[in-house]
């Protein structure tokens, strides 16, 4: 649902964000901390618009910031108003929390004059704000799905108020929270990694276009890339630009990203001569695991490009037995039994490695050649 009833704080928070590129303290007592943005933006150069979504799970609205010219979703934010209590004294905390479009935590900021404080009423130091920013960015902290009381064992409930619990920060829990601010950390972490995160991710997933996928693949954060690769469907269109991004990742040094990108490619995408040729170009210098994944992917294509056959044929006598066997299985799968290929394979029959020569023999048998015919090929002068 789109709403236009933005209040001044909302707008201020939304626009404040544009000046934040990294962890920083802004002037005029406004505190802002952030992590790397999935899609970098510059508010001065790039006009934006804000769309509000009514959050059915809470009274707070969720706002999407988009670039005005390209309509690209940039990030989401939400203004949270919550009670923070220490020693039976509660005060209202106002904080804006930001999410990247993948649902990953982006940052938080506090309106002018607002600050975070600890159990002993002391305001957070800059280091403690940094620590909070890091903790909120860690999706693996075991702070979710568990009540605060259960988390801080043994619970020391000196009164009905929260401050008693905040004081029960045990050694184990103290590694997961800002010291003296267990409840604040716990509360904010659960907001960051709560239902809003799933809502944001799901909104973006529905909007994924080739251009948006490509933008996310260019994120400086690996988890964003893995997130979007996991969302690729057989019907997703691989534009030339997107294909290039995929190929860069597969050829890159990050094994897990290459692995994820190859897993993301569906059979429908492989019916492209261009993609096949480029994948095979990567194959030549790739790690053995990636090589095998490339061959497995090509097995699922509905055809094998003639260019790939010619290029791969030239490599046959340089491969180890396992690589050769895998490539010849690819030929068999795509019914590649032309004369040039048969002759190229036949040259391997005399290889001194019996495992290698057997791969060649098996292929020729699969090409419906008889043993005498194979013997003739073996002894032929090439």
């Amino acid at each position: 649902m789109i709403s236009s009833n933005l209040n001044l704080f909302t707008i201020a928070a939304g626009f404040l964000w544009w000046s934040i590129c990294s962890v920083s303290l802004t002037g005029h007592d406004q505190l802002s901390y952030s992590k790397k943005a999935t899609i970098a933006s510059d508010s001065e150069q790039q006009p934006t618009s804000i769309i509000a979504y009514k959050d059915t799970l809470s009274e707070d609205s969720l706002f999407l910031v988009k670039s005005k010219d390209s309509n690209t979703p940039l990030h989401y934010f939400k203004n949270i108003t919550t009670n923070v209590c220490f020693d039976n004294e509660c005060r209202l905390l106002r904080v804006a929390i930001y999410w990247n479009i993948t649902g990953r935590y982006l940052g938080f900021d506090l309106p002018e004059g607002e600050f975070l404080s600890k159990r002993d009423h002391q305001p957070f130091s800059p280091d403690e704000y940094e620590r909070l920013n890091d903790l909120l960015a860690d999706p693996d902290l075991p702070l979710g799905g568990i009540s605060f009381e259960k988390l801080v064992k043994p619970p020391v409930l000196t009164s009905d108020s929260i401050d008693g619990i905040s004081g029960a920060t045990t050694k184990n829990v103290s590694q997961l929270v800002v010291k003296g601010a267990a409840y604040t950390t716990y509360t904010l972490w659960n907001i960051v990694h709560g239902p809003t995160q799933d809502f944001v991710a799901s909104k973006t997933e529905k909007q994924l276009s080739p251009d948006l996928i490509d933008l996310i693949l260019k994120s400086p954060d690996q988890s964003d890339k893995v997130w979007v690769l996991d969302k690729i469907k057989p019907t997703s269109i691989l534009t030339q630009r997107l294909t290039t991004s995929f190929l860069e990742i597969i050829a890159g040094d990050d094994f897990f990203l290459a692995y994820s990108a190859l897993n993301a490619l569906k059979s429908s995408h492989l019916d492209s001569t261009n993609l096949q040729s480029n994948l095979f170009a990567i194959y030549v210098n790739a790690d053995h695991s990636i090589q095998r994944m490339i061959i497995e992917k090509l097995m699922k294509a509905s055809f094998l490009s003639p260019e790939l056959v010619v290029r791969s044929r030239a490599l046959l006598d340089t491969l180890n037995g396992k690589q050769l066997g895998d490539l010849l299985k690819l030929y068999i799968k795509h019914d590649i039994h032309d004369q040039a290929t048969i002759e190229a394979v036949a040259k391997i029959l005399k290889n001194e490695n019996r495992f290698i020569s057997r791969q060649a023999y098996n292929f020729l048998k699969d090409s419906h050649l008889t043993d005498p015919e194979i013997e003739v090929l073996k002894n032929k002068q090439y």
Partner: protein
Amino acid sequence: MERRSMLKSLGAISLGMAAPTLAKGEVLAAPYSITKQELETDILVVGGGTAGTIAAIQAGRAGARTILIESGSQLGGTTTTGGVAFPGIFHAWGKQIIGGIGWELVMDCVQLNGDKLPNFSLLPDRHWKHQVTVNASLYTLLAEEKCLEADVDIRYYETPHQLEFKAGKWRVETVGKGTKTQITCDQIIDCTGNALIASMAGFNVLREADTQPGSLVFRIGGYNYDSLDLTKIPKQYHRVLRQNMLEHQTRTSREHTFVPYSYVYVPGADSTNSESHTKANQQGRSTLLKLIRELRSFPGCENVRLESLKTETAVRETYRIEGIYKLTRLDYVEGKLFEDSLSYSFYPIDLHREGKSIYQEFLKPNIVASIPLRALIPRNSKKFLVAGRCVSSDRLANSALRVQASCMGMGQAAAAAAVLANKHESTPSEVPVDEIKQLLKEHGAIIPS
């Protein structure tokens, strides 16, 4: 006439007594006899466990005639029969350190099981969270398939009982179910884990007075860990209840929350011979039975049931060889690189003490240990290598080296050395190390540098 007819009828009676009553289609089987045969091969790998399986595949793929003998019924050893279907560690500090055939098997298991690999780029807070859970049944099938593809002659249910080195060849006699086989080979790779063949051949092997316990792996069900009131269950049972939580093998996040199986310790577990191995299995089984009966007496555990039990007690430590070089704890924790380092190893020093505590020493950032060829060659041996936990090392280094990925790396390295030694009609210590490294690289292994 009377006498003759009497004898004739007696004969008929005795014949009738000896001959079985055969129904139509049945034939009388020949009496059980031992089949004797003589075989020749280039490489003999003894033991089809973690290291031996990889060694055999590497030898076969490098073109050597290879026989693999395994006293059990399947390949994979600790990963399959022992149930530690959680091999590691292939990655350290965000990079892959062990590749090759072992990693190929793991990747194939993960793919064929529809699983996902963990994200190795992210450093886990606990070392074992980089171990990759595999479907042990699939591992068994794939390991065998790869051996057969490499034309490895697998001989299950066989074990060597004597060997001699004569005229530059090893002559090994094995016994199995109804078989007695003499295998003549050029090179031996002892992957028994117990340095059994090295000892039989007369090379020095070492053993601690007190060895680490083995583990019998199982899974239990019928309870909900989250709803247990642990204050009402004695603390010593918490581990076994907690370490049973991974319900499937899909890795969608970077970490496991728990080690994916439960186990009971088996003090002094020794798989060296039938008697000691039988004892280790019996001891583990009776301990487990007792445990289950005890667990069922606790609130929330009344319906605990045993869901699966591995065939054998997995063994951590028995014998190790006295090699040309003995890897020390210091070598390990400092990540010493040798000229003849052929494989990496990454795991903390991890000594299970009397089954009550574990002594651990973690490697410092960016430190990865390496294994030199000389630690795989028994001192004064010819044409003989070992791979796996019997690697020449002191006790603390051994407690880290014994893990699966390291053993896989050793298996591949030993096989490459054996194949080249065979090719050069030489012994592994005389093969140019660069040649071994080159062969390993060609087969996807990662060489320490």
